[in-house]
């Protein structure tokens, strides 16, 4: 090592250099002022010794350690000798000073921290030792170690006890010097004897004792307080204490410690979980009372426990169910006939429950889920408003809530020209439609809603009763947005488009009538709509056979000829059960009324022309109109007993009118005294709408309607099962059921019965089979 030898004689002597450095080190150690020049020189001297003197670093370390040792001894003596002030205070004062120095003094000696390591490691490598190179302690850790071994180890227990005493004082409401506690904590944190677990000592001593003391402190007090003040007041107490402990922990505990949260966990355990049952017992009462403030407090307490929230969820669920159903039950009678009231009631309930969850439970996601679940039960409840779904063979398949139907009826009230829709502004209608969609989200049998909505829409469009075309379009868009099956929504939007197309067709037809035959009168009287069979359904049920009255029949060939010219390759199918018109009715008493009637009503009424004062039997009317019995009875009933009308167009010879009593020989005749009553006065002029609900449904009656829904559902279930089987090839019944429900959820929730029936059908028709060794597992047959 020629360089080393050269260095030996370079004239730098340790004693000489250290003599210059030593006073500065002393000043630093004893917190005296040091000029910036000296401070800088210190770096130079240390550097010089380290670079030019062999083993210089070790020598510096040794003398420095001696100095530190001496200082610490003196400080220790000072702490022990002070008897006027508390041990804690003196200690903290000394520690503060010393701790400050541990951040300053080691700075000039940073260089030897490194070199010491380097020399040690190279020497151990040269010696061929297999020991891993060991890093010498830095000056800072030397300082802390000295403090620890000379002072802290001896008095740590006493200090900890003092600190804990202070904290207890604070808990008891006394004012304490928080810095003392913080100082003690810092001492504990600084005492890291294990570099891998820096906070090891602190966690084993300070943190653990702190937590233990907390638990000890509250264990008896909380129970006493509860017994003394009652659970409601106890909740206030616990809430306050938890809050305080949270702040205390932030102040006095090292939050980076992995076990710092144990403190709050323990607090919750001792303050809340030990009395969880008593607190939770209050939950239902508070919910019923809607005591939002107390609920909030309860929620804040229970939120921290491990399982308490489960009970709260159960309470909420139970509350929403019982209150929701009670509400409905109490108003069942008026709600069943009044869709507006029904929907308003549902929405009011929903609002109430939502605000309860928001105000009482800060919209906790778990509670929102519970609210949704319970509300779904209320909406789909079939104990109050029920509809029995049965298949074509008349077997009952499921009992469902009438909600879907009532919602659709309410939509119709809003979108049709009605008293209600006239009363509301456009914005109000929008808002109400949005509310309908909100409730619709919870409805399970959405297919029923769509079917009724579609029936209402077709009726509105055909009878031209829509209040606002834009709203109709908006509604279709919204139904699409909220995830209604696209094939059903597509049909709605095609209906709207189709109606637009028809407006042109109708005006062309009128022009053609005037142009070809100069038939101005007919052109005024006749409107045609030719609809796309795909969008509107093929008339729903089978076409009703019926012979048009002569007055109308004449126009048919003309219309067909016109249409053929416009569109080649299409055939027309007349839907007289959907058509309607206006007639003028003149009584022999001089009355003159405009009657809005269906084509069937028209056909019956035209029979009375030329026989204005005769009585006509039902049999004759049937022969003349060729209407099927059910349809004829319905039509006649609407003419002899139209609801809410004092006097009727036709009279019949039955004392009490009921369609079941109509026989072939029942006779009907014109009521020449027909009049309207307005403001208590008899009117001989006016307009009457007799169409009413006659053209409401696509099907002839509700049972048929339900059959249609069930038939469609059966197909959907088959389709769904085959789709799943194709993908999975082999699947268990449970898995199949789960996936099927997932697929069909946007339409309806299939029950076990329908699934089982359709599986049997599919097995019978060899789409799939049961596995021979396990009958609950199915195999797909390609």
């Amino acid at each position, binding site marked *: 090592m020629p360089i080393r030898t050269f260095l030996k004689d370079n004239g730098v002597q340790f004693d000489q250099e250290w003599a210059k450095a030593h006073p500065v080190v002393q000043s630093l150690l004893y917190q005296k002022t040091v000029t910036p020049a000296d401070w800088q020189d210190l770096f130079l001297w240390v550097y010089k010794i380290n670079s030019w003197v062999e083993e210089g670093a070790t020598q510096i370390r040794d003398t420095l350690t001696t100095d530190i040792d001496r200082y610490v001894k003196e400080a220790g003596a000072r702490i022990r000798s002070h008897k006027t002030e508390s041990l804690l205070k003196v200690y903290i004062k000394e520690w503060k000073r010393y701790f400050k120095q541990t951040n300053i003094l080691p700075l000039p000696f940073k260089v030897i921290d490194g070199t010491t390591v380097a020399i040690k490691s190279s020497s151990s490598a040269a010696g061929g030792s297999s020991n891993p190179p060991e890093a010498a302690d830095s000056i800072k850790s030397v300082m802390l170690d000295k403090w620890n071994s000379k002072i802290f180890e001896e008095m740590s227990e006493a200090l900890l006890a003092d600190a804990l005493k202070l904290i207890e004082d604070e808990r008891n409401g006394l004012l304490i010097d928080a810095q003392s506690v913080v100082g003690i904590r810092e001492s504990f944190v600084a005492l890291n004897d294990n570099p891998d677990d820096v906070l090891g000592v602190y966690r084993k001593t300070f943190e653990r004792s702190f937590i233990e003391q907390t638990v000890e402190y509250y264990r008896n007090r909380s129970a006493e307080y509860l017994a003394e003040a009652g659970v409601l007041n106890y909740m206030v107490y616990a809430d306050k204490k938890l809050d305080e402990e949270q702040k205390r922990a932030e102040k006095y505990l090292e939050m980076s410690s992995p076990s710092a949260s144990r403190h709050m966990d323990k607090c919750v355990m001792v303050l809340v979980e030990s009395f969880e049952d008593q607190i939770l017992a209050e939950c239902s009462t508070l919910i019923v009372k809607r005591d939002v403030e107390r609920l909030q407090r309860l929620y804040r307490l229970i939120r921290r426990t491990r399982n308490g929230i489960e009970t709260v969820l159960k309470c909420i669920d139970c509350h929403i169910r019982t209150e929701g159903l009670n509400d409905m039950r109490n108003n069942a009678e008026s709600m069943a006939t009044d869709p507006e009231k029904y929907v308003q009631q549902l929405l009011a309930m929903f609002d109430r429950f939502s605000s309860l969850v928001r105000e009482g439970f800060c919209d906790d996601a778990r509670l929102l889920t519970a609210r949704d679940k319970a509300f779904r039960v209320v909406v789909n409840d079939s104990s109050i408003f029920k509809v029995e779904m049965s298949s074509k063979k008349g077997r009952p398949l499921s009992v469902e809530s009438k909600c879907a139907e009532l919602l659709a009826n309410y939509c119709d009230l809003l979108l049709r020209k009605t008293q209600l829709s006239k009363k509301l502004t456009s914005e109000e209608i929008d808002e109400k439609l949005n509310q309908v969609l909100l409730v619709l989200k919870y409805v399970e049998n959405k297919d029923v809603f769509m079917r009724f909505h579609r029936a209402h829409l077709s009726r509105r469009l055909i009878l031209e009763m829509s209040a606002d075309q834009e709203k109709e379009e908006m509604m279709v868009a919204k139904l699409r947005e909220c995830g209604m099956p*696209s094939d059903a929504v597509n049909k709605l939007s095609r209906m709207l488009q189709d109606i637009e197309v028809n407006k042109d067709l109708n005006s062309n037809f009128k022009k053609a009538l005037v142009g070809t035959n100069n038939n*101005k009168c007919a052109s005024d009287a006749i409107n045609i709509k030719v609809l796309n069979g*795909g969008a509107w359904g*093929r008339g729903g049920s089978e076409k009703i056979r019926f012979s048009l009255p002569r007055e109308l029949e004449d126009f048919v060939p003309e219309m067909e000829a016109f249409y053929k010219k416009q569109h080649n390759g299409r055939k027309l199918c007349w839907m007289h059960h959907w058509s309607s018109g206006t007639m003028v009715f003149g009584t022999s008493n001089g009355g003159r009324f405009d009657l809005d009637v269906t084509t069937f009503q028209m056909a019956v009424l035209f029979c009375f022309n030329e026989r204005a004062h005769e009585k006509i039997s039902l049999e004759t009317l049937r022969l003349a109109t060729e209407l099927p019995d059910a349809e004829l009875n319905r039509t006649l009933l609407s003419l002899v007993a139209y609801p809410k009308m004092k006097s009727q167009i036709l009279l019949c010879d039955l004392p009490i009118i009921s369609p079941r009593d109509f026989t072939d020989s029942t006779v009907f005749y014109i009521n020449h005294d027909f009049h309207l009553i307005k403001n208590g006065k008899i009117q001989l002029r006016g307009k009457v709408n007799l169409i009413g609900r006659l053209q409401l449904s696509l099907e002839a009656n509700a049972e048929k309607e339900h059959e249609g829904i069930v038939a469609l559902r059966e197909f959907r279930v088959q389709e769904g099962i085959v789709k799943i089987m194709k993908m999975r090839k082999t699947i268990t019944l449970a898995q199949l059921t789960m996936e099927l429900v997932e697929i069909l959820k946007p339409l309806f929730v299939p029950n076990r019965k329908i699934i089982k029936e359709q599986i049997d059908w599919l097995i019978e028709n060899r789409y799939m089979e049961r596995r021979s060794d396990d009958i609950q597992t199915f195999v797909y047959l390609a």
Partner: protein
Amino acid sequence: MSTTDVTVTSEDSQKKTANPTENRPFVLKKWNALAIWAWDVECDTCAICRVHLMEECLRCQSEPNADCFVVWGDCNHSFHHCCMSQWIRQNNRCPLCQQDWVVQRTGK
């Protein structure tokens, strides 16, 4: 024009009594006739997807804005256009009569 119009109206109203009389108390004022149209074809379901020709084919039913129309071949058989365009990729014959497929017309 206007004069002829007027005369026609008066003639008509004379011919057809627009007002109810003692003997004919009911007079038509307006009739809103309604019909459904369908393609005038022998077989009204698409032989490929088994869906009625008046409705969108299976594939299009699940699409939000599908444009599904009907196509006729020279053989006068009709299918959904989308179904047929899939079909002829494999076999350029009418699935019903095995004649070569030539489009005769399409209908919207």
